[in-house]
C-alpha cells in the first residue's frame, strides 16, 4: 500500500509530472498511494510529518482577492481552494490529472489544481469558477453561453470545462468547432454531453466577440 503511484496524464501547460514530484520530494513529504489526502494545519501542527523550510503562511491571490492561508508543503491547490478558502466550485474527480474537473487558471493559463502545489502559486493570480462573475453578479459570457445552450448534464465536470472554455475564448476568440474540441480535450465528461459542451463553447466565443 506504499508504492509510489505516478500519474500518467499531465496537465496541459502545467507543471510537468517531474516538477510536481520534485516539488514534493524537495519539501520532504512522503508520497503515498493513499492519494487525495487533506491535512488540516493547526489541528496536529506539532506532529506534522512534514519538515520543511518553506513558510506555511502564504498570501495567495485568488479571484482578485488577497487571502492569507496556512499551507502545508505537500498541499495541492485544489485542497487549499476547497478546504481552506471555501471555494468548493473546483471539483475533484480523480486527483491525478486524468479528468480536468479541478481545472483553474493561474496567470490566465489553465492548470489541473489537483496537480499544482499551492506553494508554487505564491505571487500568481489564481482564478476559479467562483471568480468569473462580475462584482455586480453579471455572469461571464462563457457562463451565459452555457445557460443559453443548456449545457451539461450532471455538471460535476462543468466548472473545469468552463475554465477551459474561458481560456479558449481568451486565446482564440473565433475558434472552429474542432479547435474548440482540442482546447477542451483535457476535460472529461462522463455523461458524454460533448455536443452541448461544444455548442456552448462556440456560443461562448460568439458572446465574447460581441462584448469585445
Amino acid at each position, binding site marked *: *500500500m*506504499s508504492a509510489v503511484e505516478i500519474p*500518467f496524464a499531465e496537465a496541459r501547460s502545467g507543471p510537468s509530472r517531474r516538477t510536481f514530484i520534485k516539488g514534493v520530494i524537495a519539501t520532504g513529504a512522503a508520497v*503515498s*498511494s*493513499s*492519494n*487525495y*489526502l*487533506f*491535512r*488540516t494545519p493547526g*489541528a*496536529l501542527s*506539532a*506532529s506534522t*510529518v512534514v519538515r520543511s523550510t518553506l513558510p506555511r503562511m502564504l498570501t495567495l491571490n485568488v479571484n482578485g482577492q488577497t487571502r492569507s492561508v496556512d499551507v502545508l508543503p505537500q498541499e495541492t491547490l485544489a485542497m487549499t481552494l476547497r478546504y481552506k478558502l471555501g471555494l468548493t*466550485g*473546483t*471539483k475533484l*474527480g*480523480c*486527483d*491525478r490529472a*486524468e*479528468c480536468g*474537473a479541478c481545472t483553474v487558471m493561474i496567470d490566465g493559463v489553465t492548470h489541473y489544481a489537483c496537480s499544482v502545489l499551492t506553494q508554487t502559486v505564491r505571487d500568481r493570480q489564481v482564478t*476559479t469558477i*467562483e471568480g468569473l462573475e462580475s462584482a455586480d453578479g453579471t*455572469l461571464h459570457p462563457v*457562463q451565459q453561453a*452555457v*445557460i*443559453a*445552450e*443548456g*449545457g*451539461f*448534464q*450532471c*455538471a*460535476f*465536470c*462543468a466548472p473545469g470545462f*468552463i475554465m477551459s472554455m474561458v481560456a479558449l475564448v481568451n486565446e482564440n476568440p473565433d475558434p472552429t*468547432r474542432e479547435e474548440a*474540441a482540442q482546447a*477542451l*480535450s483535457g476535460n*472529461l*465528461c*462522463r*455523461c*458524454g*454531453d*460533448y*455536443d*452541448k*459542451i*461544444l455548442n456552448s463553447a462556440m456560443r461562448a466565443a460568439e458572446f465574447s466577440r460581441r462584448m469585445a
Partner: protein
Amino acid sequence: MALIGQDIAPPDLVAKVTGRAKYAEDFRAEGMVFAKLLLSPMPHARVRSVDATRALAMPGVLGILRASELPQADAPGETPLTDEPKYVGEPILALAAVDETTAANAIEAIEIDLEPLPFVIDPLASLAPGGPDARLDGNAMVFGENGRELKSIKWTAADFDSLEDGRLPMGEPTDEWEHGDLDAGFAAADVIVEDTIVHQSLTHHPMETRSSMAYWQNGKCHLFASTQSAGRTHGAIANQLDLDPDDLVFVAQYCGGGFGSKIAGAPIYQVTALLAKKIQKPVMMRINRYEEGYIGRGRPGFQSWVKMGLKNDGKITAIDLYIVQDHGPYGRSGDYITAGAVTDLMYQPGAMRFRGITIYTNTPPRAAQRGPGGAQIVAMLEPVLDKAARELGIDRFDIRMTNAPDSDSEFGQNRDKTTGTFVREAMVAGAERFDWAGKSQLSGQRNGTKVTGVGIGVSPYVGGSSGFDGLLLIRPDGKLNIHQGIGNLGTHSMADTGRAAADALEMAWEDCNVIWGDSSQHLPHSSVQAGSQTAHAHTRANHAAGLDLKQKLQEIAAATMGGSAAAYRVSAGRISGPGGSMSFARAAERAIEMGGKYSGEELPEDINATTTRSGTALAGQGVMGVAKDNFSHEGGTWSWVVGFAVVELDVETGDVVLKEYLGATDCGTVLHPRSLGAQIAGGSIQGFGQARSQKWVFDPKWGVPFAHRLYTARPPGILDVPLHMDWVAAEIPDPENPVGVKGIGEPPVGAGAAAITSAIADALGGKCLCRTPLTTDVILAELEGRPQPAQLTEIHI
C-alpha cells in the same frame, strides 16, 4: 403553448455554472473530521485479527468502525465493511481522524492478519470440476422449492470439451425458458449463424465518486451524499440505519452521475453515518478514484453463445442463446435475464430458447449500469445478425426492419406485450436523416490505410413505471411549487416532468418553483431515479396532481364567485368563468379559509405514506394538488434507440475513428428536445466506451485488478466522438401515458455500443470479433492473423 416539447434550461443551471451547486463533498460542518477505509489487498480472505492499538494511540485519531458494528445484510447481500473480504479493495474497517493524512497514516499503522481463502475471477473457472467458489456458501444463487438458496454448482469435464473449438461450455443452466418449436425453427432456416461472444465487465465511474458527510444533532442523522434518487435513498438509508424517516435529514440536491451505481445511494454511506454517531463528530468520507474503482460497482460481463436461423428473406426462425454472467461477490443481478427478453423482443424469432447462469466471482460488486443486460446483448448480437445478412445478400437495415416488432408483438418467457412499439418508424426516420442508402455504399471503401465501416445497432429498453404520487402547492404568492422526490443527476427530469403539472394549469414556467433534493422540504413518494423511469412515471404523477389542483381551483372559484366549477377556465395564473375571474394567489388564500381537501388538511387515501407525511407538513399554506397516478398502464413501456455509425479503421495501426453518428428514437412525446438529444448522444458515447475502451484486467494468479482508474479503463473523451452528433425522434405518443412521454436514459447505450461493434465488423469485411472491448490490440491481432491476446472464453484478461 404547452411547456412539454420546448427547450427550457433546468432551474439549477446557474448554480452549476457558478460553482454554487453543492455536491456531497462540498458540504462542511463545524468540527468536521475525516474517515479513511482499510481495503482488502486480497481477493478473498478472512480477517483473523485486527490490532489497532498503535493506530488509536496516534495523535488526532478518533476511532474505528468494524464490520460487527454495522447492521448485517443477509447472504448474498453486502454489508459495507466486512471481516470476510471477497474482492481486492473491499472495505474492512473505517477510521476517523482530525484530517485525512492522519487517518491514512493510522490505517497504515493497523496490524491486520488475513487468512487467504480460495478465490476465482472467471465464472467458467468456478464452474469447472473442482473449481473454486467465490463465496464460502457457494458460487450461485438458485430459486428452489424453499425460495432462494446459495449453492455450489460445478459442470462436468465433458461440458468443457467445447473449449477445444473455442466454443462456450454449456452445462446445466439455472434459468431456462423457451417458446415455439426450436428444432423446427432451425430445420426451416436457410442460413444458420453461430458464435461464442464475450462481453467485459466495466466500472460505472461517474465523475463524482460516492463521497458522503454525516453528523448527528438532537437524535437526528443529517446525511449529505451522492445519490441518483433523492426520496427513495432517504427511505433506503433510514431503513438500513433502523431510523424513523423523520429522524434522517437527507440532502442530495446534486449528483455528479451514477449511471445505475447510486440508485438508492451506496452501502458505504452507512459507514459514514455510523462512524459519525460513534465518535460524535461530523464525518466526511471522501472516496477517491482508486476506491471508486473498487467499490463503485460495475456492469456484469457475459460469456455467451448464440445460434440464429434465418429464412432467405431474412426472417429469423429461431434463436438459441446461452449466457454465463459474471456476478461479482454479492447480490442478485438480473442482467442476463433481461438480455434474454431483449433478444426476443428485438428480433421476434419464430422460436427461442434462453438459458443462463450467473456465477459469483471475487471481482467488484455489480449493479445495474445504464441499459442493464440490454446494452451488453445488443452490442454482442447485432454483428452476428450482420453476418447472416451478408450471407443472405440482404441489406442490414432491411433485415432489421423485417424482424422488428410492432405494437402487437409479444416477447419473452411470459409472452409480454408493450404499451406500443414504434421502432420501425424510428428506423425509417433515422435511415432517412442519416442517409443509410447512401452511407451504406461506403462500406469497405479503402482510402490509403483506412477502411470505412458502416454500422447499425437497434436497442430497446424498459422506459417507465407508474403508480407514484404528485404533490403541488400554490401559496398566496400565486406561484406553483412542484415538489419532486426524484433525484437530480443531470437528466433534468426533476424539472422537466414538472411541466406536466404546469401544462395541466396552463401555467408559465417562470411562475413555477421546482423543489427537490432535501428531505426536509416535504417531497412526495417517487420512483427511483433509474431505469429510465422518471420521465414516464413523473409526467404521469405530476399530470395527476395537476388535474387535481385544477379541479380544486375551479371549485374554489365556483364557491367564491358562483356558477358551476366546470364552467371555469384555468389559465395563466387565473380562474375565469361566469362569476368573474380570480388569481391563483387569491384562490390560495381562499383555500386556506376553506380548509379540508383544498389546503391539504384532508388528503387522498390512496397516496403513499411518504406523500401523506409531506402533504400534512405543507397543509394549510395554500391550495394543494396531490394525487396518485392511477392512469391505466397496460403492457410494458419500452423505448428504443437505433444507432447509425460510420467508422474508419486503420489497417496498419488498428485504430478506429468514429466519423459520424446518429441516434433515432421511439420514446413517445418529446418532453425536452435538447435534453433528449443529450441523453441519446451521451448514452451512445457511454456505449462507444463500452465497445472500444473500458475494460477490466485482473492478474489471474493473485486476483488483483490493474484497470481501475480513468486512464486505464478510459471512457471516451471529446476527441473520440464526432464534432456533431445528430438525433431524430419518431414522436409518436405512448398510448398509455396521458402525456405521451416514455423514458430514454437506458436504450442509447446499447445503440451506441452496437452501432460501433457492427461498424467495426463491417470494416473487417463482416468478421465478428465477438468480444468487447474492441481495443486496438484485439483489432490488430485480427488484421495480422495472430491469435487473440486472450482466449475467447477468458474474461478480465
